[in-house]
C-alpha cells in the first residue's frame, strides 16, 4: 500500500478531473473583457443591472437569515419557559410517577422523544442504506456493462425525484403490511432476546418501518454522490494498483475507495441531513406517539413528523412555540450537517488531486 501512495504525486498531474479549455468557464475575467468593460458608455444601466443581480443574490442570504430570525422570535416563549431543559429533561407525572414528555393539555413540552426518534430512525436508515449505496456506486463505476449504466443512472435520478408523500403512500400500503406479517415476527423470534425487538406493537408501524422507508429515500442521494466522487479518482490510480498484481476487488478497495473516502463520508453525511429533515413519509409510518422505548418496533415520532401533525392545530401559544423551537433545532442541525457534507464533497470533487493524499 505504501509504495502506491508514494507514487501518487507523480501520477496525478496527467489526469485529474477533466480539464476545461482555458476560455470556457475560466473564473477570472480576461484582460480583453476587462478592457472592453472599462470603456463601456452605458455606465448607469450597467451599474444598475449589476446591483440588481447582486440584490437578488443577496436575497438568498436574506431568506436564510429571515427564516432563522423568525424561528427564533417565535420560539422565544418556549425557550423562556423551559430553557435548555427542553432538550434533555422529562417531566415526572405526579400521579403515575412515569416520565411525561409531550403533554399539550397541561403545557408540558420536552423535545426528548422527538430527538430520540429522529436520531434512531436516521441512523437505522444509514445503517441500511450506506452499504447498499456504496455497492451500487461501485457497480456503476467499476464493473457495470456499458449498456446498463445509463438506464441505472436514470432510475437513480428518478428515485430522487419521487415525492416523499408517494413513498409514504407505498410504505403505508405495502411496506407496513409486509413488515407486520413477515419481517417483524421473524425479528421478534430471532432477535427478541436483545430487547430491541419487543412484540408489544402489532401494527407494523414504528422505527423499523420509518428506517426502511428512509433508507430507500436516501439511497439515490448517497449513491449518486459516491459515484461522482469515485469517477473523480484518476484512472492511473486504478491502473497502478492493477499493475501491482491486485485483484479487481483489491483495486476497488485500495485504488478507488481509499482515495474517495472523504467524499464518500461527505455523501453519507448529506444523506443523513436528508434523513433528519424528511417529513411526510416518516410521519405516515412511524406511529406518531411521543415516547422513548428500547424496542425498535415500538411507535415513536420525529421532530419533523410532530411539526407536520400538530402545527396546524396547535392548542396554545406555548404549544406553537414549542413546535417552533423544534423547527429551529432541526434547522440548525441540518445546516451544520449540510455544511460539513458540502465541504467534504467539495474537497474531493474540486481539488481532487491535492486532497487525495
Amino acid at each position, binding site marked *: 500500500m505504501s509504495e502506491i501512495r508514494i507514487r501518487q504525486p507523480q501520477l496525478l498531474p496527467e489526469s485529474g478531473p477533466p480539464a476545461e479549455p482555458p*476560455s470556457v468557464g*475560466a*473564473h*477570472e475575467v480576461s484582460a480583453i473583457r476587462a478592457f472592453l468593460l472599462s470603456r*463601456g458608455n*452605458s455606465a448607469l*444601466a450597467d451599474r*444598475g*443591472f*449589476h446591483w440588481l443581480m447582486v*440584490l*437578488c*443574490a*443577496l*436575497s*438568498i*442570504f436574506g431568506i*436564510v437569515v*429571515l427564516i432563522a430570525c*423568525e*424561528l427564533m*422570535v417565535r420560539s422565544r416563549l418556549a425557550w423562556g419557559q423551559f430553557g435548555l431543559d427542553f432538550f434533555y429533561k422529562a417531566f415526572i407525572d405526579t400521579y403515575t410517577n412515569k416520565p411525561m414528555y409531550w403533554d399539550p393539555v397541561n403545557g408540558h413540552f420536552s423535545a426528548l422523544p422527538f430527538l430520540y426518534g429522529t436520531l434512531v430512525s436516521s441512523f437505522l436508515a444509514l445503517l441500511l442504506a450506506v452499504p447498499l449505496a456504496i*455497492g*451500487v456506486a461501485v*457497480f456503476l463505476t467499476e*464493473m457495470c456493462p456499458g449498456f446498463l449504466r445509463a438506464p*441505472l443512472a436514470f*432510475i437513480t435520478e*428518478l*428515485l430522487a*425525484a419521487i*415525492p*416523499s*408523500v*408517494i*413513498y*409514504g*403512500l*407505498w410504505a*403505508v*400500503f*405495502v411496506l407496513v403490511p409486509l413488515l407486520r406479517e413477515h419481517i417483524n415476527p421473524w425479528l421478534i423470534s430471532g432477535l427478541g432476546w436483545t430487547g430491541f425487538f419487543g412484540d408489544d406493537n402489532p401494527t407494523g408501524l414504528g422505527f423499523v418501518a420509518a428506517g426502511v422507508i428512509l433508507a*430507500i429515500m436516501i*439511497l439515490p442521494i448517497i*449513491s449518486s454522490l459516491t459515484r461522482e466522487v469515485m469517477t473523480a479518482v484518476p484512472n492511473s490510480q486504478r491502473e497502478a494498483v492493477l499493475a501491482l498484481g491486485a485483484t479487481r476487488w483489491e483495486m476497488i478497495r485500495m485504488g478507488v475507495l481509499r482515495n474517495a473516502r472523504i467524499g464518500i463520508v461527505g455523501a453519507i453525511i448529506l444523506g443523513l*441531513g*436528508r434523513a433528519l*429533515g424528511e*417529513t*411526510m413519509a416518516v410521519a405516515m409510518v412511524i406511529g406518531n406517539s411521543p415516547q422513548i422505548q428500547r424496542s425498535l418496533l415500538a411507535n415513536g415520532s420525529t421532530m*419533523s413528523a410532530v411539526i*407536520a401533525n400538530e*402545527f396546524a392545530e396547535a392548542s396554545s401559544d406555548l404549544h406553537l412555540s414549542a*413546535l417552533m423551537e423544534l*423547527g429551529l433545532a*432541526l434547522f440548525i442541525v*441540518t445546516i451544520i*450537517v*449540510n*455544511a460539513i457534507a458540502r465541504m467534504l464533497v467539495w474537497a474531493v470533487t474540486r481539488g481532487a488531486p491535492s486532497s487525495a493524499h
Partner: protein
Amino acid sequence: MLATVLVVAPLVAIFIYLVYKGASSLNLAFFTHNPVPVGETGGGMANAIAGSAILLGLGSLIGVPIGIAGGIFLAEFGRSTKLANAVRFTADVLNGVPSIVMGIAIYSLVVVPQGHFSAFSGGVVLGIMMIPTVCRTTEEMLLMVPNAVREAALALGVPNWRSVLAITVKTASPGIITGCMLAFARVAGETAPLIFTAFGNVDWSSNLNQPIAALPLQIYVYAISPFDEWHRLAWAGSLVLIILIVLAVSLVRFVTSRGVLKGAS
C-alpha cells in the same frame, strides 16, 4: 453485483405497484370532478390539480427570476469573489433545509400577519424552495458559455447588461430552462410545507387569498384516511403526480444529454 439488484428490485416494485394501483383507479371523473364526501363513490381531484397548477405557477413566478438573477450574479459578476462563494454556499445550505422548517417559517412570516391560510403563502414557500436549484444550474450553464462570445458582444459596443441578457443568457437558455424544470419537478411533490400554508380545500378555489387544494396534500389526506374509496383516489393522484415528474425529469435528461450548448461553442 448483488447490492444493485437488491436496490433496484424494491424500486421497480414501487413503480409497478404504483402504476398498477393507479391505473386501475384512474378515470375521467378523476380529472373533472371535485372530491365528494365520505361514503359516496366517484369524485376526483380536479380542484387539487388546478390548485397545484396555481401554486406552482406562483412559485415559479417568485423563484425563477430570483434564481436566474442569482445565477447571473455568480457567473457574470461574482465569479470567485468572497461574496460569490458565500452566496454559493448559502444556496447549497438553503437547498438542504428541510421543507417542513421552510413551511413553519413562512407560516409565521406570511400566514400569521395575514391571519389565515392562503394560496399566496403556499406559492411563496414553493418559490423559495426553487431558488437554490435554479440559481446553481443557471450559474453552471452560464459558465459553459465561452468568453469569446461575451468579448465579441462587448467589442461591438453592446452595453454589458444587454450583452449578458441578450447574448450570454440567451445562449445558455436551454440549460437554464432545464434547471427551472428540475426545480419545478422537485417542488411539485412537496407536501410538508403546504400543510400549514396552502392548507388544502375540498372545493374549487382560485382565490389567492383563500386556502387552496394541492395534489400532494390531497394524496396525504386520503392516504391516512380509513376509507378504501379514498385510498383508491390517493393512488390515482400519485400516478398523475409521478407521471408529471417523470416527464419533467426525462425532458431534462433528454435536453442535457443532447449537449445543450453544442451550437454555441
